[in-house]
C-alpha cells in the first residue's frame, strides 16, 4: 500500500463558539477518488479551505507527499501541486477563456514577471492552453469572453485551468453544482478519467455521482468524520444512514 499523497490529521477550526471542523482525519491515495459528503453546514467547505491554505487550522496537521504544509500559504500550496476547483467558477470575466488558461500555464511555468513579450504571440502559452481547453471540452469556445460562457462552459473552463496547473492533487468543491442531468453525466465521465492524472478529493452533494465515482467515501457531520469506507460500506453503515442518507440508499 503506497503512502497517502495527502494526509490530514486531527484538523480543527472554531469560529467563536462554533466548531466548524473538529479533529478531522482523512487521507488521499494516488489514483483514487475520495468523496467527502455530509449535510449542509457539516464543515466540508471549511475543511477544503484549510487544506488549500485559505484558513489556518487551530489544531492538527496537513501533510502533502509526506511533508507538513502547515506553514505554507495558499499560493505556495497551489504551486507545490494542490489544485482547487471552486463551487462557483472562479474566472476572470473580462478575459477570454484562452487567456484564463494561458495564465494558469504561465503561473505553472513560474514565469509571471515578464514584461516585454506580448502573450498573444507567445506560442508556447497559447498552444499549451488550447490543449488543456480541448481536454476540458471547451476547444471551440476558447476565444470567447469568459463572462459570455454558459454556466456549464464556465465549469469546463474551471477544469481547464485546474488541468493547466498540472497538479498532483485535485480538491474539488461540488463540481456538479448547477449542471443539467446531461452535463452531470459528462462531468462524471470526465472525473472518472481524471483520477488517472491525479487523485481527487471530491466534496459533493450529488449522491448518484458520488456512488458512481468514489473509491472511498468519508462522511462529515458537525465537523467530525463519522465514517470512512468504500461505497458499499458507507451505504450499509447504520450511523451514516440515520445521519445523512435517510432510507434513500437501500
Amino acid at each position: 500500500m503506497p503512502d497517502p499523497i495527502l494526509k490530514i490529521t486531527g484538523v480543527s477550526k472554531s469560529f467563536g463558539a462554533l466548531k466548524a471542523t473538529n479533529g478531522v482525519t482523512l487521507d488521499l491515495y494516488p489514483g483514487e477518488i475520495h468523496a467527502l459528503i455530509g449535510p449542509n453546514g457539516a464543515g466540508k467547505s471549511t475543511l477544503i479551505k484549510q487544506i488549500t491554505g485559505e484558513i489556518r487550522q487551530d489544531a492538527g496537521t496537513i501533510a502533502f507527499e509526506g511533508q507538513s504544509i502547515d506553514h505554507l500559504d495558499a499560493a505556495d500550496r497551489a504551486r507545490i501541486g494542490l489544485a482547487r476547483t471552486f463551487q462557483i467558477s472562479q474566472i476572470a470575466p473580462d478575459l477570454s477563456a484562452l487567456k484564463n488558461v494561458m495564465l494558469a500555464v504561465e503561473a505553472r511555468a513560474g514565469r509571471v514577471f515578464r514584461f516585454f513579450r506580448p502573450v498573444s504571440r507567445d506560442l508556447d502559452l497559447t498552444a499549451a492552453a488550447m490543449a488543456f481547453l480541448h481536454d476540458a471540452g471547451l476547444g471551440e469556445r476558447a476565444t470567447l469572453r469568459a463572462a459570455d460562457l454558459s454556466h456549464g462552459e464556465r465549469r469546463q473552463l474551471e477544469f481547464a485551468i485546474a488541468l493547466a496547473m498540472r497538479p498532483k492533487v485535485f480538491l474539488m468543491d461540488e463540481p456538479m453544482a448547477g449542471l443539467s442531468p446531461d452535463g452531470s453525466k459528462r462531468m462524471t465521465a470526465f472525473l472518472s478519467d481524471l483520477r488517472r492524472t491525479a487523485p481527487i478529493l471530491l466534496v459533493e452533494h450529488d449522491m448518484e455521482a458520488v456512488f458512481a465515482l468514489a473509491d472511498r467515501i468519508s462522511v462529515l457531520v458537525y465537523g467530525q468524520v463519522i465514517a470512512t469506507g468504500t461505497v458499499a460500506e458507507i451505504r450499509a453503515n447504520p450511523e451514516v444512514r440515520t445521519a445523512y442518507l435517510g432510507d434513500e440508499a437501500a
Partner: protein
Amino acid sequence: MSRETVLNLAILAGLLAVALTAHLSGEPFLVTLATKAAILGLAGVGLNLALGYGGLVSFGHAAFFGIGGYAAGILASAAQNYEPLMTWPLELPGTTSMPIIWATAVIAAGLVALPIGALSLRTGGVHFIMITLAFAQMIYYFAISWPAYGGEDGLSIYVRNTLGTLDTMDPLTFFLIVFALLLLVLGLTLMATRSRFGLALAMARQNPLRLTSMGVRPFRVRLTAFVLSAMAVALAGALYADLNRFVSPSMLSWHLSGELIVFVILGGVGRPLGPLIGAALYVLLESQLGQLTEYWQLPLGIILLLVVLFARGGVIGLVTGRNANA
C-alpha cells in the same frame, strides 16, 4: 485596424499637430498648453497602470508627482546656486542635466512607492483609498514644513534644465522632448499590459482568489504595478517642474491626486490613451472655462459629475462603444 487604434493614433497625431501649428503661427503659449497636456497625460498613463489595469484606486499618486518635481527642483537649484546637496561623507553637487534628473526622479519615487505600496496593499477597497491618501498627505505636510526647499512657497528653477545641446527653453523643443517621453512611456505601458505580467495583473484585478489558487500572489503583482506607475508619474512630475520652472507643495496635494484620477476617468479607464485624452480635455476646459469665469471649477465639477454618473466608459467608451479589454 480597430476603431480604437485609429482613435489613438489620431489623438497622438492631433497633439503633435496642435503644437506644430501653434509654433508656426507664433503662439508659444499654445505650445506650452500642449506640453502641459502631454505631461499630465503622461502622469495619467502612469496612474492608469495601477488604477485602470490593476484596479488599485490610489488617491495618493500626487506624492510621486511631487517627488519627481522636487527631485528636479532640488537638483537644479543646487546646481544653479552652486550649493552642493551634501558635503559629507561625499560631495554631491546638483545638476541641471535632464537625464540625470529624470533618473533620480524615477528611482526616488520607486524607492518611496515600495514601502507605501507594501503597507497599503495589505488592505483593499475603501481602506486602500484612504491609506494612499493619508500617505500622500504625510509627504505633503513634510514638504510644507521643511524650510530648506522653500516650504509652502515652493522652489524656483531659474533656467530650464539641459539636454545635450538642445535649446530646451524653446517651447517647441521642450514639447518634442516631452512628446518623445510620452511615446516611450506609452509604449512601455502597452508592452507591460500585453505581457505575461499584464495578464497576471488583469487577473489580480478581476479575480484575485483565482490568481492565488494558480500559485501567484496578487500582492506581488499589485505592488509591482504600483511601483512602476509611481515611477512613470514621477517622470511626469520632473517634467512639470521643468515646464513651469517651479515646484511647490501643491504638486503633492490630494487635489492633484484627484485630478489624475479624473484624467483617467474622463478618457476611459483601462484604455492606453484614455489618460491623454482626459488630460487634454482637462487642460482645454481649464483654459477655456477659465476665460469665461474665475469659478471655472464649478462647471468642471458638474461636467465631471455627469461623466461619472452617465458616461462610465469615458470619452473612448463613448466613441468606440465598448468597455474594457479581452
